[in-house]
């Protein structure tokens, strides 16, 4: 028997079936558990992953090291052969628990017994979203507006797959038999399935077209970013390190969403200018140009923003308070906030539905943590919307996209039982039914967008409804063959 030698710090060990930077070769129990989980994962990927492109060569980035200079290596890969691995940010020996009742203790390398159930739940909820989005997006390849976009979709998909691995590793390593069962459960639930749906609402919605995909990666993956960032604050160090590395990958998903929507907007504005159309609300004329009119883009944003807000849970939550107090899940950028990091007496303003009115109410900051994270999220979204508006402004068109009120079209929390317009006014059920189609994509809107979803797979070419990107991936030129399709 030979003793496996440890790879240098930061380097990824590819000698095991599962690439990793955590000396998996020395941890035979977890290695074996993951190797047993692996075939089920591949089965899942083959049946629920991108449909029709499993044999294509895709120009993907793969992490070969967690060192900033080495982790993004690009090459052609067939997706089922992607090296999904377990990658954690480097361990900082001096790291402490930075908030909650245990603030100041050394960060935990093992799960504290009293927090076991709560932590497992956090890991499972996060883990469940990762395969869900791959399932939601599996049919999109066939209507890709370019090879560049197709490649970006698949990069997002394989990285969501890797994020599932990241969570499954935590389950296998730290949660024993329960963890193994939960890991299997992650492969059994299916997005939108009536009997075994995914755990969170937005992850059971369909992603019918590419504009939805871009909106999803902009709005819904951004919820993922916020959740990962606050989990990266965790006192449970393996969770923190896992999430920190995931965040670097998540940034690519934000990029795909923001630039995807931006390019659709740019193309619409360009077509309008070319045809001399000044009025953005002259929808039929704009649509006749084969581009998506700005009011419809606004409707898509309304829909995906509101669905994503539901992911933050109830505004007032004792679970959130317990997670914080227990040192399990912090605030966004916790260590950059200057306060006592305990929130014992602090207050936080929360938008609530009280006495038939929508108004701000001061609540204990501890129970208002979901609200706080959601506020940080809205601010982050607003930045992107502002950049979209710059594109419209630059084209000289009088139109601005806005984020709807957080009370608009909600299914969870304070506003789930009331109807509210995008500008925050209460509505009767009858008025809502009448006006709904002005704010949320109608069946006709969906059919129109679908009619534009024609594949465009020539190198360097883009479908008529979307502009070319400003820069390619990995400094590649405009006509680079990002996907070699090889279809029969």
């Amino acid at each position, binding site marked *: 028997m030979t003793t496996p030698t440890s790879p240098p710090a930061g380097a990824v060990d590819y000698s095991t079936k599962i690439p990793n930077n955590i000396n998996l070769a020395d941890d035979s129990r977890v290695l074996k558990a993951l190797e047993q989980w692996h075939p089920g994962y591949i089965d899942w990927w083959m049946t629920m992953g991108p449909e029709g492109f499993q044999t294509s060569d895709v120009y993907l980035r793969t992490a070969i090291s967690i060192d*900033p200079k080495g982790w993004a290596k690009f090459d052609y890969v067939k997706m089922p052969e992607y090296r999904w691995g377990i990658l954690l940010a480097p361990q900082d020996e001096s790291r402490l628990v930075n908030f909650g009742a245990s603030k100041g203790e050394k960060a935990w390398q093992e799960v504290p017994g009293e927090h076991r159930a709560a932590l497992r739940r956090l890991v499972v909820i996060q883990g469940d979203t990762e395969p869900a989005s791959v399932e939601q997006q599996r049919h999109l390849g066939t209507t890709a507006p370019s090879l560049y976009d197709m490649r970006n979709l698949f990069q997002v998909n394989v990285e969501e797959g890797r994020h599932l691995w990241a969570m499954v590793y935590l389950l296998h390593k730290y949660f024993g038999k329960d963890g193994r069962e939960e890991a299997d459960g992650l492969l059994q639930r299916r997005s939108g399935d009536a009997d075994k749906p995914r755990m969170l609402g937005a992850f059971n919605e369909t992603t019918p077209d590419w504009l939805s995909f871009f909106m999803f990666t902009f709005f819904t993956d951004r919820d993922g970013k916020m959740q990962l960032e606050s989990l990266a604050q965790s006192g449970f160090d393996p969770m923190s390190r896992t999430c920190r590395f995931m965040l*670097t990958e998540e*940034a*690519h998903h934000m990029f795909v969403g923001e630039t995807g929507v931006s390019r659709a907007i740019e193309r619409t504005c360009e077509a309008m200018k070319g045809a001399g159309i000044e009025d953005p609300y002259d929808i039929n004329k704009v649509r006749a140009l084969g581009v998506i009119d700005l009011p419809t883009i606004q409707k898509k944003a309304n829909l995906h923003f509101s669905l994503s807000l539901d992911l933050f849970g109830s505004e007032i939550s004792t679970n959130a308070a317990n997670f914080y107090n227990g040192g399990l899940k912090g605030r966004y950028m916790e260590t950059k906030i200057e306060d006592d990091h305990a929130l014992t007496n602090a207050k936080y303003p929360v938008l609530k539905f009280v006495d038939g009115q929508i108004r701000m109410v001061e609540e204990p900051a501890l129970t208002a943590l979901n609200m706080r994270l959601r506020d940080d999220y809205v601010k982050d979204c607003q*930045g*992107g919307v502002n950049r979209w508006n710059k594109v419209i402004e630059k084209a000289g068109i009088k139109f601005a996209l806005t984020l709807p009120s957080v009370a608009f079209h909600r299914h969870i929390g304070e506003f789930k039982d009331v109807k509210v317009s995008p500008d925050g006014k209460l509505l009767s059920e009858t008025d809502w039914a009448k006006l709904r189609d002005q704010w949320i994509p109608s069946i006709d809107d969906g059919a129109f967008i679908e009619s534009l979803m024609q594949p465009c797979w020539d190198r360097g070419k883009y479908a008529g409804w979307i502009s070319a990107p400003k820069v390619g991936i990995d*400094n*590649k030129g405009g006509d680079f063959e990002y996907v070699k399709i090889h279809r029969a």
Partner: protein
Amino acid sequence: MTISASTAPKKQHLIDPEICIRCNTCEATCPVGAVTHDDTNYVVDVEKCNYCMDCISPCPTGSIDNWRTVAPGRVYSLQEQLGWTELPKQEELSEADTAAMEALEAEVGALLADAHKGSGGKAVAPASAAKPSVNLFSRAKPLTAVVQGNFRITAASSESDIRHIVLGYGDQQFPVLEGQSIGVVLPGVRADGKPHDIRLYSIASARDGEKRNGNNLSLTIKRSAGGVGSNYMCELKVGDKINITGPFGSTFLMPNDINANIIMICTGTGSAPFRAFTERRRRAMEGAGGKLVMYFGARTPEELPYFGPLQKVPQSLLEKHLVYSRLPGQPKEYVQDRMRKHGPALTKLLRDGGTHVFICGLRGMEAGVDEALSDICRAAGLDWNALKPDMRSSGRYHVETY
């Protein structure tokens, strides 16, 4: 030419606000806290950035990889950058600043200025060339590379010992473009006790490495009798460590346009950049519309570097004209002689606004080639004296001789 630190222009690292999505990855990655942000922009503090490049590869958008050369006292402050909605254009620099721009290290700048003077005016990069990184490593802060190979590429029987040397840089970042050079810091000191001058060598491999994604590069080096630099290089063994500087050069660069015709005229080790150009075309520009035409001179086939491998390069990728001046029983033929024979074909290319001419090799070849081009043009009713400056100022005429 000497440029002191205080008067030399600076390469300033900037983030493109039109492409950046404000994901915070760069700020989280930067080991020296040089990246910061407000509600609108992410920006880089020029005082803190140490060019470590850690932030470049994790950036999902490419917005991070932007550089402006700025004159002393004209660096962009954080306040200015925070107010931007788009990147400023590269400002015109003064003559003195421009002279120092190709390489911010004075000594190397002087070497390059000298090498490029044969073009007869201010060198301009091809319009379609990628943005080069320059001066990431200096004599004071060199990059330690490891020798991965050292192969003789001229026949063992010939007097001319030319080496193909491969240097790897592990997980360190050393982004290069075809046409750039690197410096070598020689160990030891000169007889007068001062350090040896930096030796400058053209890169012979494509931007993605001698081996694709191998994080390495290759050089073509001829041993010259008694030469300290060339003998040091030619004696290197696999595994040896060597200190390099650069990359250098921001004008003698390969056009990225696939429709660009490139006429490459060289002798001896001057073929190095053209090996890089050809490899780049082969790897990344399959089916390119533009032609690659090479006039390559040597005394004999045995002394022509890469003679064997060159035979395998298909004519469809590279139109090769190998010219020998010392074939037994044959009259001497130089590159300019062969070019004269191809007058109509060359003038057809020269009339095309997408054609670039690159000359690299011994200084002695310059005059002959220039005369040949002049004669070829005259015969076709073209005025080389007018065409040359026009090509030069549009980045289509390049000379690097030594």
